[in-house]
């Protein structure tokens, strides 16, 4: 039970933190450097990285672990609209797609989950990030009715978000190691 609470706290905190960084720091910078870019989608969407890494690490437990964080972000962005059916559907899509992709791949004989004696394959995780991004884009489009031109922007933002999150972890571990 304690482990569930800890997982939920850290996964949701990471999701809210990544969203804050994306919407409060990166998107204003994007608007400054690419003022003519028409889409409202972020080109560096860090929360996607949190979704994928949480699903890889926690499996189906990533769904309840991420749910509070995703709900908070949707509530902060959309206010009371968070309770609209399409928003609730989008929240469900955001938390379930990445674990579903990992389990589907496992069912197909390609188990990427961490296990003793197995070296993780970061390129495979990036691949799952790509598949998840496409699926989330298609499903979210069904819920929100975004234009298809946004798909490419979503894919770029999600993949760069996952990659930069992993670089962020790389530098964080380096700093921790140097201080240890």
């Amino acid at each position, binding site marked *: 039970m304690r482990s569930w609470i800890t997982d939920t706290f850290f996964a949701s905190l990471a999701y809210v933190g990544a969203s804050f960084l994306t919407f409060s720091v990166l998107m204003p910078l994007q608007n400054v450097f690419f003022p003519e870019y028409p889409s409202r989608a972020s080109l560096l969407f860090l929360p996607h990285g949190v979704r994928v890494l949480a699903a890889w*690490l926690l499996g189906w437990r990533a769904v309840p672990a991420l749910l509070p964080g995703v709900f908070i972000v949707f509530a902060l962005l959309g206010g009371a609209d968070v309770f609209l059916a399409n928003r609730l559907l989008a929240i469900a899509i955001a938390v379930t797609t990445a674990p579903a992709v990992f389990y589907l791949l496992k069912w197909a004989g390609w188990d990427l989950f*961490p296990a003793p004696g197995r*070296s993780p394959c970061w390129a495979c995780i990036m691949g799952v990030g790509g598949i998840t991004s496409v699926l989330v884009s298609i499903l979210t489009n069904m819920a929100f009715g975004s234009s298809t031109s946004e798909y490419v922007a979503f894919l770029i933002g999600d993949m760069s978000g996952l990659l930069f999150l992993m670089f962020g972890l790389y530098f964080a571990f380096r700093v921790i190691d140097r201080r240890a």
Partner: protein
Amino acid sequence: MTEISKLAELRKLVHSMERTLGLEELSPVERDIYYAAEELSKNGSEIRTYGLIEHTLVQNVSRPTFFRALKSLVQKGYLAHSGNANRGRYIVNAPR
């Protein structure tokens, strides 16, 4: 999976990225031995050479390469000889 092993798995994932992108400071064999040592070390307990050499990650490593890499890991501070007299025992350290 415990909190520490989740962190260890994240580190392994990042190390896998480092390896592919050529950012690492350890050789592939040293890295595998370090991963194996991390897994075998429970709550900071000692690990033994014979346990390490039988780990699945280092099964295909020749003995001379294994011992060279082990010595290198000690020199780089990733592993330390246990305080006991027996030199076949090590403690896993966080990298310097």
